[in-house]
């Protein structure tokens, strides 16, 4: 059985938002021009805002006593939370595009 290559094997150190993880002087990466710190891109703030919005919208007091049916099937309170689940999926999908915290170099398997 051949050993699967992983990105943390020697020579395959991942970068944390563009910063090399290995100890000692790191070679300049393609992302070294970015300012270092926790909030380098607006993506993180966008996702933080969306997640806070999801958590606020989760407390839907406006539908608390509303028993109307959406399409004659779903009580509106349930429908709202189904929409929240879908919105959460879309938010996290966006997070992987604009605010993913760790850039991996591709493993040979992924590159194929």
């Amino acid at each position, binding site marked *: 059985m051949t050993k699967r290559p992983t990105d943390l094997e020697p020579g395959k150190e991942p970068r944390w938002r563009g910063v090399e*993880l290995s100890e000692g002087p790191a070679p300049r990466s393609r992302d070294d021009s970015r300012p270092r710190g926790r909030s380098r891109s607006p993506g993180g703030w966008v996702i933080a805002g969306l997640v806070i919005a999801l*958590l606020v919208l989760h407390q839907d007091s406006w539908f608390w006593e509303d028993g109307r*049916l959406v399409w*004659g*099937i779903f009580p509106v309170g349930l429908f709202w939370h189904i929409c*929240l689940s879908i919105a959460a999926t879309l938010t996290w999908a966006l997070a992987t595009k604009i605010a993913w915290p760790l850039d*991996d170099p591709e493993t040979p398997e992924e590159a194929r």
Partner: protein
Amino acid sequence: MHPGLPQLIIILLYLTLLLLLGALSSRMFRGTRLDYQVASHSIGPFLLLMSLFGTTMTAFALVGSSGEAYRQGIGVYGLLASSSGIVHSLCFFLVGVKVWKVARRNGYTTQIEFFRARLESDFVGLLLFPILVGLVIPYLLIGVIGGGAVIQGLTAGLAPQWFEVLGPDGQPDPAVSGGVPPALGSLLICVVVLIYVFVGGMRGTAWANTFQTLVFMILGVVTFYLIAMRLGGQPGFFDNLKVLGEAMPESHATRVEMSQSKFMTYLLIPLSVAMFPHVFQHWMTARNANTFKAPVIFQPLFIMIVWVPCVLVGAWTVGVWADPSLRPEGLELPSSPNAILPFLVATQTGPLLGGFLAAGILAAIMSSLDSQFLCLGTIFNNDIFVHYRGRDRVSDRLQVRTTRAFIIGIVAITYLCSLGNPRSVFFLGVWCFSGFTALFPIIVAALYWRGLTAAGAISGIFAAIISWCILFYHASQIPPEQGGLGSLLLRVPIGGVEHEVMPVVAMTLSSLVTMVVVSLVTPKPAPETLAKFFPERI
């Protein structure tokens, strides 16, 4: 066909399939400790998604969700499911990816290894070890006891002479009499999980979890379709949904009887996932950081796919049995809400689906049990045996053997405890989760705050566990007829109005405040240690 026999055959076939899967995965075993405990960090996005989802969803997702919706209405979806969808992904994103990075770079497999190194404290490991084990064991018991009860209920009538169960009136109870006894069913589950975890380690666990997650997701949707088609009495699926929706009583189509402040504070409970030791170990299996993208994205969607059908079925049942034109003749609903879904399957579908549903429920149970057994074996080996004996003195082969030996011991202890049939463990679920949530500030601070000190973390852990014990004691004083352990709520007066608040708020706040205050006045870890955990700040 003989009652209960088709169900038993399907259950046995399903368990055999799991054993085959375990045997297959063992052929890929490389013989090393890392391969056994974390599958050599080789798990890709699909397997990580399915195994994490399967691990976080217990039998409660199928049986408990429909039972709670039957009791409280559609509000349970927001209370337990949509909140988990948002918060679980948040934990994977904020904690999982960063923990993976730090732990992979420094070679940690368990939470305790991580905390010992981050805080430069051996004591923090000794403190966390009994807490983590103590919080996982009731969770294990719930699965083992629940599995035995499910097998008994769905094989009822199989052998009335051998396995007779009398009801309160002294007559055989048709819901369970003749079914495989819980002690035998629980033993069967323990042995099957033990075998595939023993031979396959984490790879076998991940494969089995993936298979089982697919099983319970597909069976949940199929069950929903068949029950809707029977209960509605209409020819078309959507016509049935409309009839059943209109039959739902106002109390169950709204949340008029649910406290808004309880609903809000329940949001803290899913944070527990960030401190589950078995979830930590699954994170460590990821091939690379991008592997986390699938669980982060799809966890809310998968929760929705499993929970919405179950919640609807539970809420519909109330309306159907209240409406004489819909109510199936001669059928009385079971007294226990958790028996609603098995009852509907047994009465509204055939024995074949009953067998498949039993397999689905067992899948949900076992996909959590396997990870928990493996994780406890791993932390016993890594954090106690190897840590105190010395890594240099213990070969990889010996570590695999020790992990396996511990797993056998834990399975045996869990099974023996389950024989006492302590029904009160079912109420411990929310208390286990609350305990893990109370430790959430510690993991976040360890990852994001250089100022966290060993004294701060240890004080925070003590604050969490002391507040947990105090509140648990108060809950244990509530008689079962008044709701028992699960019914304790704190009452906070704000603006002259009392708001009901979950006990987890007090535990988490006490842990957070203590941790911060003590960390601010105690010495920080050495710069070399901080450099290992915060390389981006160098």
